[in-house]
């Protein structure tokens, strides 16, 4: 086996072991249908393996993995645009949409997750990339490196995300129903 190929395989295995669960969550943020989601996940893994042939270490493996995954998933959304897809909104638009039914976060995790997922899936790709990265625990600099938007812009978007989450979910016991 050529050295390049074994390096590619080793990098893929390292990425799949380190980010496998995160990639599945990411696929869920982009595709609600279970069968299509499975296909998307496999497409992401395939693209990732292919991409490692060109991985030059100029960015971290984490940045590389998330870029490939988001780019594949964004492509998936663009391809599906002719299908019956609900209109996507930006964080700014979402911020202005009234949502009177704030949910108590500790009441039912399943329901909270479903609601969070619906919120994420309604967003335009760029904002979806930011919110998913934020939920994965990445900081503004890392999100900026992955998405290509400026640190200031990422900070603004995260501020908006926090506001939206605070309005739609609340801590049990802190706010009255």
């Amino acid at each position, binding site marked *: 086996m050529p050295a390049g190929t074994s390096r590619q395989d080793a990098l893929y295995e390292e990425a799949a072991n380190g980010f*496998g669960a995160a990639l599945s969550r990411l696929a*869920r943020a982009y595709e609600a249908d279970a069968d299509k989601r499975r296909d998307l996940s496999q497409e992401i893994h395939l693209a990732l*393996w292919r991409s490692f042939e060109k991985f030059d270490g100029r960015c971290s493996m984490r940045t590389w993995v998330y870029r*490939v995954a988001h*780019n594949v998933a964004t492509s998936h959304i663009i391809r599906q645009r002719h299908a019956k897809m609900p209109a996507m909104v930006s964080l700014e638009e979402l911020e202005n949409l009234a949502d009177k039914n704030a949910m108590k976060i500790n009441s039912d995790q399943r329901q909270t997750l479903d609601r969070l997922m619906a919120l994420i899936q309604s967003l335009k790709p760029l904002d979806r990339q930011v919110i998913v990265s934020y*939920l994965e625990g990445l900081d503004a600099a890392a999100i900026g490196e992955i998405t290509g938007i400026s640190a*200031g*812009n990422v900070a603004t978007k995260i501020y908006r995300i926090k506001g939206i989450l*605070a309005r739609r979910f*609340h801590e049990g016991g802190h706010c009255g129903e």
Partner: protein
Amino acid sequence: MVNELLQNDVRNIWQDQKVEAVQLSVQEIRQRAGHFAKQTGRRNLREYIGVVFAVLVFGFYILWFPNFTVRLGASLTIAGALYVAYQLHRRGSTRNLPENCGSESCLDFHRRELERQRDALRSIWSWYLGPLIPGPMVLIIGGGFAKRPPWHGRAWIGAVVSAVLFSLVFLAIARFNRIAARRLQRQIDDLEECSKAKVRDAW
């Protein structure tokens, strides 16, 4: 403080969710890559079969119909089909993701994908609709005239009506594509704004 607790709770719920993990060994990945290449090959083959079918049918017209306009129409249809097939093949090959899509930020990748689609839609006259028009037009009008010359009334009127309807269908397709291209342009403009904000921040 309350807000920070909430953010952590939401993040925990997100990260603790049960997901169906994709477990693919390198061997399976290689098999799938091979399968994907075969699928692409089959897609190309279907396109080639369609073109071969068109060439056979209209080639028959050229061989068996003595009328010059019918032969001309059939020749133009074959030429148009070959050109469109070449363009579909050329553009189809870029549907596959580039291997270096990890070195490109999501913003740049997304904008490039949208621009590629916008350009394809904007130029649809030159590479798809336009080449398919002359052949059928000559066949429709030439066929009508072949049955009866223009000075003999109704046959050619039917041919002209068919040609107008044919043109209207193509115009409608072009209009839908222009609307879709404008929609893509709005998305590209939004992404451009993000890029400009990045440059402003850098200064």
